[in-house]
């Protein structure tokens, strides 16, 4: 069984949920502690959501320097699949494993909502069980989820198919946090490191995820975890 590490930083909140998602997807979650520079031989890593170090300076800015990040950054550069969810995405950007940065939502409030997303790249380690163009509904909850990068970087990301997920925005509407080009998630060039603001780990069990009234079974997030697992086992 593939072993997937889930890192706990001080202030991590969705670490237990990420571990549950790994388990429900058929993997073995392995808890990793921020203070240990040791990946315990895992096959992939999830950096979970939360407010590491209170997110006081900038989201993810302090967690990026945690001891566990040293082996993680090296391993990620070497091809280890890494998924950063929300705060985990912010940590990956601060650690320069992914381009860009996440800033305060343009409406300046925290927003928790069932969010419709479009899968733009179903070729990454974490999305290959989806279809390109498929729409899914997954909870989104953040105060600083606006994805920004300079125009050149954004053009590059699009040209290389490195935009993994986009917010589905109704005609005339705006995306939920002011993200450039409605970007909800991006990947590195190898398609192994993926970061996204929405929370797939909160859409893995019917009845505990998005409201069925939004037209979803509530389990659209599960395939992110099973994608990685299947590829690792195969």
């Amino acid at each position, binding site marked *: 069984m593939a072993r997937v590490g889930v890192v706990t930083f001080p202030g991590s909140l969705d670490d237990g949920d990420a571990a549950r998602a790994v388990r429900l997807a058929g993997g073995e979650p392995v808890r990793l502690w921020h203070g240990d520079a040791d990946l315990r031989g895992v096959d992939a890593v999830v950096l979970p959501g939360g407010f590491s*170090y*209170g997110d*006081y*300076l900038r989201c993810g800015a*302090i967690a990026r320097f945690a001891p566990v990040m040293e082996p993680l950054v090296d391993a990620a550069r070497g091809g280890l699949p890494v998924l950063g969810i929300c705060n985990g995405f912010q940590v990956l950007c601060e650690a320069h494993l992914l381009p860009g940065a996440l800033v305060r939502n343009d409406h300046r409030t925290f927003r928790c909502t069932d969010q419709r997303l479009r899968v733009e790249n179903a070729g990454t380690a974490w999305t290959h069980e989806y279809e390109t163009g498929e729409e899914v509904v997954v909870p989104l909850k953040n105060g600083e989820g606006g994805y920004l990068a300079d125009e050149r970087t954004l053009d590059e990301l699009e040209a290389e198919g490195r935009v993994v997920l986009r917010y589905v925005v109704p005609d005339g509407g705006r995306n939920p946090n002011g993200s450039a080009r409605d970007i909800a998630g991006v990947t590195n060039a190898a398609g192994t490191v993926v970061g996204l603001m929405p929370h797939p780990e909160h859409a893995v069990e019917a009845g505990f995820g998005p409201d069925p009234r939004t037209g979803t079974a509530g389990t659209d997030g599960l395939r992110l975890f099973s994608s990685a697992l299947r590829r690792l086992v195969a």
Partner: protein
Amino acid sequence: MGRVVVEVMPKPEILDPQGKAVAGALPRLGFGGFTGVRQGKRFELEVDGEVTPEVLEEAARAAEVLLSNPVIEDVVRVAPVEADAATTTLAGGSA
């Protein structure tokens, strides 16, 4: 076009969780020399013309009324940005 800088800091007796978090991180990154950190806000206000004493006066009032929360914060500085630029260059050399 002129600019006024307004700076606001948490009152000394008030807990500053942000500064505390930064203070905790610095030594771990090898910056051992700092014994405390406080984090506040810096606003740059733009005006069409020059920064006259009247503009500074208005900025100071805006600082009290809107830019700071007098219950927990102090306005520590209201000044034209020029004065600032000089300092930046000065210190910038060491960066």
